[in-house]
């Protein structure tokens, strides 16, 4: 039974929310619904206006996604990419974070240096690494040859067998700072008493890390891992600029765009985009539910 004053407040709330909600509806809700709808048609980029309803054909039909080998390899690539990058970034990020928790002269500079890869626009990173990975004039080949790790120049951005390695390398370079920051934040929130107690007990630092630190930062790190994973599944920019639409690194986003823009199959490409959306949404919901359950049981 709200009186006039609280009803006024509620009205004010919705008034203030409306501009943002309108924009969000325009920019997120409507386009998403449109994409889902387009996925159920045979729309084509050249004649968008006369598209016919095809129902779930784009998904389950003869030429549908579920039967498309390229789609499935895109899915595999994406999952493999996600697994590799997130695990490497988490481990490296934790190492860097641990280093940054120790006070040493120049620590602020090191932290700033570590942030640089994150600050550089993705496209620029891709170009910089493209140059470094160039098969003829790239410094990476030169360095590896000099050190003796390879016996001939490798085509990092052309050889199908090496593409995934290159892409993972650049993504790890670019995103480890982010993971390092998140882990660092988690480490800095830990109570110092644990360490002091361990120190007094004379426990070996490595043991302290695995038995004390790691379990305590696990919740925060898991959050970071989920965020990163959801990001990795959606990846587009880096791979497109570094490699292009080559099949061995094609991720779901790249696949969808290729269908949409290059092959002009708006209906089919929208179906792929929709699938990607639902996969991400599903993972998000699962994570939220699992998180709720865990909190509930605490």
């Amino acid at each position, binding site marked *: 039974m709200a009186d006039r004053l609280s009803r006024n*407040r509620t009205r*004010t709330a919705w*008034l*203030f*929310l409306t*501009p*943002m909600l309108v*924009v*969000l509806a*325009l*920019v997120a809700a409507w*386009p*998403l619904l*449109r*994409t889902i709808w387009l996925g159920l048609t045979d729309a084509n980029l050249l004649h*968008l206006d006369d598209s016919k309803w095809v129902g779930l054909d784009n998904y389950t039909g003869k030429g549908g996604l579920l039967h498309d080998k390229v789609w499935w390899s895109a899915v595999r690539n994406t999952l493999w990419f996600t697994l590799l990058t997130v695990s490497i970034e988490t481990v490296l990020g934790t*190492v*860097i974070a641990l*280093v940054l928790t*120790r006070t*040493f002269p120049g620590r602020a500079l*090191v932290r*700033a240096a570590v942030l*640089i*890869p994150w*600050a*550089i*626009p*993705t*496209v*620029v990173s891709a*170009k*910089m*690494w493209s*140059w470094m990975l160039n098969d003829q*004039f790239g*410094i990476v080949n*030169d360095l590896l040859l000099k050190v003796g790790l390879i016996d001939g120049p490798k085509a990092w951005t052309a050889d199908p067998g090496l593409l995934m390695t290159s892409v993972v390398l650049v993504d790890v*370079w670019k995103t480890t700072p*982010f993971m390092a920051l*998140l882990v660092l934040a*988690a480490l800095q929130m830990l109570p110092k008493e644990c360490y002091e107690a361990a120190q007094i007990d004379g426990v070996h630092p490595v043991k302290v890390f695995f038995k004390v630190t790691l379990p305590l930062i696990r919740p925060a790190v898991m*959050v*970071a891992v989920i*965020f990163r994973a959801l990001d990795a599944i*959606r990846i*587009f920019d880096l791979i*497109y*600029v570094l490699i292009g639409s080559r099949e061995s690194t094609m991720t*779901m986003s790249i696949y*969808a*765009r290729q269908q*949409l*823009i290059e092959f002009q199959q708006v209906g089919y490409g*929208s179906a792929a*985009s929709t699938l990607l*959306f639902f996969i*991400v*949404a599903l993972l*998000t919901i699962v994570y939220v539910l699992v998180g709720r359950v865990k909190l509930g049981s605490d």
Partner: protein
Amino acid sequence: MPPITTGRVVKTSLFYLLVLAIVAFAVFPFYYAILSSLKTSSQLFDIDYFPVRWNFGNYVGVFRDNPFATNLWNSLLVAVVTVMVSLFLGVTAAYALARIRFRGRGLLLMTILGVSMFPQIAVLSGMYQLVRALGLYNHLGALVLSYMIFTLPFTVWVLTTFMRELPKELEEAAILDGASPWVIVTRVFMPLMGPAIVTTGLLAFIAAWNEFLFALTFTLTNNERTVPVGIATMSGASAHELPWGNIMAASVIVTLPLVLLVLVFQRRIVSGLTAGAVKG
């Protein structure tokens, strides 16, 4: 302090070696890009690890052979307008979400956050049609509009979290002084939210500056292109020869101010990023 033993000396040296390795790994590509940008096209064929000669030809070339200046201007314009619009929409929404209790508030906040999980490609075709319908195709306005999809969620989230912390009595004193909600937001709250506004502004700026897919899809002519697309499409005299010198110069030009921004504001940026993730 524990005694200085050979064991400790070894451990400390290993530690600093690790630090060096980390810094080298992080900074080398940028360093090498600077190096390469200072070479002439013939010198590019030689691989150097240290600067041997300095030549600024590429920096001239990048502006001469490409509409790079236009790209820079477009990126700047889009980023600044995006930040301003995001902040306006974010601050107003944050007031409602942080200071007023109403049914569905929690769910709404979660939904807004959820939008940040959308794959860009999933809204691409819909956005494309919207952009055409609004007559914004090949217009920078299309970018400002489409960028809202990723700036609004975290802007609203960070500003809401911050606004929640402001004392209730301050708002009540303002109400008793006769302040309308708009006055409260602009004249009482916003002056106190400097740090949050700077943080979200920075993050929004970096995100807008960085964006590639929408910029690639919604602009057609060179005059409307932003820096990421400009760099990605830089082509040379022949079809297969990329003007690496120019590209590296462009990379350095674009990256230097960003690196400086990040160095100066690292604390703000870090707290903004971690607040989002850790609280989530």
